[in-house]
C-alpha cells in the first residue's frame, strides 16, 4: 500500500521508505530492525520481497491466461470460475473492510441478492427474459441501492453496531428468500411463488454479450478475468486518489479524519455501496454460470470464507486479497477429495513438528516418539481385546494404507474417534501452557492423537473437517499474525 507522500532517503543509502499515514521514518523502518533471520531461507525471502509488484501481477496474469489455453477440463474451469467470483467478492469486501474499516457481516446477502435478481429476470419463474446487457447493469445498481438502504441506519453508529445490523440483514435475507415461495398479497387470492423457497430457481438463461452466447464455464472464466483485470487497475488507481486516501484515513482514525474536513459519512456510504455493487455483479455471474440459484450458498459459511480470504492476505492489500482468495477457494476444493486432504494433513503435520523441533535430531526423536506411541496404543487396545476394524474399511488414501500396518483402528470408531477429539483438544490446550520439557514429551502423543483422529473420524466427514480446519486457521492466524500475510503490522508511537 503505497502512498504518494514524499519518501525519506537514508544516509546509509538503504532503499527508500514510503511513509504511510501517521508514520514517521522510525515507524516505517520498524520492520527492518526486526529482521534477525539469516540463512538460505531468509535470503530467499529477502530476494522474493525485492520482486516488483508489477512483475508479480503479470506472473499471476500469465498463469491465469495459460490455464484455460492449456486445458478444457470442465471441472478445472468451474474451479477457475469459482476462484474468479471469490476474487471479485474479496475485492469488494476489501474496499468495505480493508479500506474503509467497516464491518459488513451481511456481505453474502448482497451476493445472494444479485444472484436472485438475475434469476428472477432471466427465467420462467416470473416469465421475464431480459437481455444480459440490460439486466446486469440494472441489478448492479439495484444492489448498490440496497447497500445504501442497509447502511442508512448505521450512519451514526459505531463499527460494532454496523456489524450487528448487517449480520441480521444477512440472516433476514436468507429467511425471506426461504419463505417467499408462497406469499399471499392482500389483494390477490392465490399465493405467489417468487423465490422457489428451498428448491431455488432452475433453468436460467446464460449470458449473451456482443452476440456471443456463453455456453460453458470457460466463457465465464474469460469474462471474469477481464473484469478482474479492469477492477485491479481501477482499484489501484482509486487507492491513490483523494477518495482512496480518505478511506484509509477513516480506517486509521476517523476522528482525526473528520477534523481534517473529510466527510466521513459520505465516504463510508461510498465504500459500502461499491462493495455491495461488486457483490451483486459477482452474484449475477454466479447464477448465470450455475444455471440455477439456491439460497444455501449465501449464508455464514461463505461470509466466513471471504473474510478469511481478505484477513489471510492482509486486509487493505489488493495482492493480499488475491492471494487470500486463491487459498480460500482452492483449499475447500482440495479438501473435498479425501486422498488429497490426507496428504495435505500429513504435510502440515510434518511442517508443524518441524517448526517446533528445529534440529534434525529432535525432529527424528519426535517422529520415533509418534511411532512408539502408536505401538503402545496398539498394545493397549490388543490387551483390552478391542476388536479392530478391517483395513479395507478405513484405509482409503495411500498414506492410510501405508499406516494401516502400524495404526490400530478400533471397531467402534465413532466412540474412540470422539474420545480422541476431546482428548486432543484438551492436550493442545495444556501443551500451550506447559513447560518445554513436558512439551517435548507430550508432542508425539498429541501428534499421534491427531493422526488417529484424522484416520478414524475426520477423513469420513470432509465437510465438517473443512469447517473445523477453517475455524482453527482463523484463530491461529489471528493470534499469530493479526495483520495477515501481506498486511503491515501497525507500529504506534505514543
Amino acid at each position, binding site marked *: 500500500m503505497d502512498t504518494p507522500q514524499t519518501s525519506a532517503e537514508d544516509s546509509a543509502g538503504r532503499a527508500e521508505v514510503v511513509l504511510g499515514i501517521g508514520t514517521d521514518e522510525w515507524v516505517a523502518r520498524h520492520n527492518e530492525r526486526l529482521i534477525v533471520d539469516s540463512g538460505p531461507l531468509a535470503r530467499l525471502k529477502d530476494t522474493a520481497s525485492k520482486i516488483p509488484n508489477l512483475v508479480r501481477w503479470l506472473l499471476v496474469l500469465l498463469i491465469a491466461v495459460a490455464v484455460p489455453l492449456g486445458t478444457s477440463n470442465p471441472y478445472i474451469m468451474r474451479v477457475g470460475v469459482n476462484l474468479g467470483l471469490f476474487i471479485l467478492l474479496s475485492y469488494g469486501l476489501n474496499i468495505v*473492510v480493508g479500506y474503509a*474499516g467497516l*464491518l459488513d457481516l451481511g456481505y453474502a446477502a448482497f451476493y445472494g441478492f444479485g444472484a436472485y435478481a438475475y434469476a428472477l429476470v432471466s427465467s420462467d419463474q416470473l416469465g421475464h427474459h431480459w437481455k444480459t446487457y440490460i439486466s446486469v447493469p440494472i441489478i448492479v445498481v439495484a444492489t448498490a441501492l440496497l447497500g445504501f438502504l442497509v447502511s442508512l*441506519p*448505521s450512519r*451514526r*453508529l459505531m*463499527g*460494532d*453496531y454496523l*456489524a*450487528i*445490523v448487517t*449480520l*441480521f*440483514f444477512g*440472516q*433476514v435475507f436468507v*429467511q*425471506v428468500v*426461504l*419463505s417467499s415461495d408462497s406469499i399471499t398479497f392482500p389483494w390477490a387470492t392465490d399465493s405467489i411463488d417468487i423465490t422457489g423457497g428451498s428448491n431455488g430457481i432452475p433453468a436460467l438463461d446464460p449470458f449473451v454479450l456482443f452476440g456471443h452466447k456463453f455456453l460453458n464455464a470457460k466463457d465465464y472464466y474469460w469474462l471474469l478475468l477481464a473484469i478482474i483485470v479492469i477492477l485491479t487497475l481501477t482499484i489501484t488507481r482509486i487507492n491513490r486518489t483523494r477518495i482512496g486516501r480518505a478511506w484509509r484515513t477513516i480506517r486509521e482514525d476517523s*476522528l482525526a479524519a473528520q477534523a481534517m474536513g473529510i466527510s466521513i459519512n459520505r465516504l463510508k456510504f461510498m465504500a459500502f455501496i461499491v462493495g455491495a455493487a461488486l457483490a451483486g455483479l459477482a452474484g449475477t455471474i454466479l447464477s448465470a454460470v450455475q444455471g440455477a440459484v439456491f439460497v444455501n450458498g449465501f449464508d*455464514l459459511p461463505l461470509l*466466513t470464507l471471504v*473474510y*478469511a480470504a481478505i*484477513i489471510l492476505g492482509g*486486509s487493505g492489500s489488493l495482492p493480499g486479497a488475491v492471494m487470500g482468495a486463491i487459498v480460500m477457494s482452492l483449499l475447500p476444493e482440495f479438501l473435498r477429495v479425501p486422498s488429497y486432504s490426507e496428504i495435505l494433513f500429513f504435510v502440515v503435520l510434518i511442517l508443524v513438528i518441524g517448526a517446533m523441533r528445529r534440529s534434525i535430531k529432535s525432529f527424528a526423536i519426535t517422529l520415533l516418539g509418534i511411532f512408539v506411541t502408536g505401538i503402545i496404543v496398539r498394545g493397549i487396545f490388543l490387551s483390552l481385546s478391542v476388536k479392530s476394524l478391517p483395513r479395507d474399511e478405513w484405509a482409503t488414501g495411500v498414506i492410510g494404507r501405508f499406516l494401516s500396518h502400524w495404526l490400530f483402528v478400533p471397531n467402534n470408531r465413532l466412540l474412540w474417534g*470422539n474420545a480422541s*477429539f*476431546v482428548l486432543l*483438544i484438551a492436550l493442545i*490446550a495444556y501443551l*500451550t501452557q506447559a513447560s518445554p520439557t513436558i512439551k517435548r514429551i507430550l508432542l508425539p502423543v498429541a501428534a499421534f492423537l491427531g493422526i488417529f483422529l484424522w484416520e478414524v*473420524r*475426520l477423513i469420513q*466427514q470432509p465437510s*465438517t*473437517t473443512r*469447517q*473445523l480446519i*477453517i*475455524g*482453527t*486457521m*482463523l*484463530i491461529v*492466524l*489471528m*493470534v499469530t499474525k*493479526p*495483520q495477515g500475510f501481506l498486511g503491515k503490522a*501497525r507500529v504506534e508511537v505514543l
Partner: protein
Amino acid sequence: MDNGVQSVDYFGQQMVNGITLGGVYALIALGYTLVYGVLQILNFAHGDVYMIGAFIGFFVMVGLGGPSHAVVPVAVMIFIMFAVSMLGSGLLGIVIEKFAYRPLRNSPRIAPLISALGVSLLLQNGALLLFSGSIRSYDTSSFVPITAGIHLGGVTIDGMRILVLVLALILMFGLSRWVNGTQVGRAMRAIAFDRDAAIMMGINVDRVIMWTFFVGSALAGAAGVMVGLVFLRVYSYMGFLAGLKGFTAAVVGGIGSIPGAMLGGVLLGIAESMTSAYLSPNFSDAITFLLLIAVMLIKPRGLLGRRAIVKV
C-alpha cells in the same frame, strides 16, 4: 378467535410464551453485555457456548438414567443438569477467552471478531462431529406432566415455564448482586469504566475478565438447558440464531447495560411471539430485524444505554 374470551386467552398464552422466550434471550444477552462492557468485543461464539450448554444438560440427563428412568428425583436431576451445564459452559468460556481473545487484547478491533467467528465454527462443527447432526429431544413431558402448572382462565403456564421464569429471575437477581455487591463485580465495573485507570488501581484485569467470561458463559449454559426443557429440541446449529437474538436483545436494551439486556431480552421474546402468532411465522425474524433498526434509529445507544461521551 371467534369470540372475545378466546382471543384474550390466546393473547395471554402468547404473552406467557413470549416472556419465557424473553427470559432465555435475556440470559444470553447478559453474557454479551458483560463481555462487551468489559472488553468492547463482540463474542460471536457466545451462541455456541449456549448450544454446548444445552448439550451438556442433555447428556447429564441421559447419564442420570434418561427422562423416564431417572435414578434420582426429578427435582435433583434438573438441579444437577443446570449446575453441571453452567459449570461446563463457564469453563468453556474461560478457555475461549484464554486462547482466542486474550492474545488479541491490543489488536485492531476486527481481529477478535474474526477469531470469534473461528471459535464459533470450531464449536459448531466440533459438536457436529461429536454429537452428529441429528436433533435430540429433552422429552420433558415424560417426567413432568404437561397438565401440571397454573391455570388462569384459559391461559396455562406449565410447570417447565414456571421453573424457567423463576430460575431466570433468580439468576438475574444473583447477577446484579454479584456485579454490585462483590469485589470482583466492582472491579469489573471499574474495568468497564476505564481499563487503564483500573490497571493503575491494582486491579488484576486478567482475573476479572476471566470471571466475566465464566459468569457470562454460565448464564448462556443455563439458557441452553432452559431452552431444552421448554422447547425440547437440541442440535448443533441452534447456537447461531439464538446468539444473534441474544445480541439483538443486548443492543436493543443498550449494550453494556445489565438491566438493558434483561429488558431487551423480554421485549424481543414478546415481540417474536406476537409477530409469529398474529402476523406471519415465516417473517418473524424479519420483523425482529425491523424492530432492531427502528430502536437503533430512534435511540442509537439502546433503550437503557448511556450516551457515550468519547473523550479524545
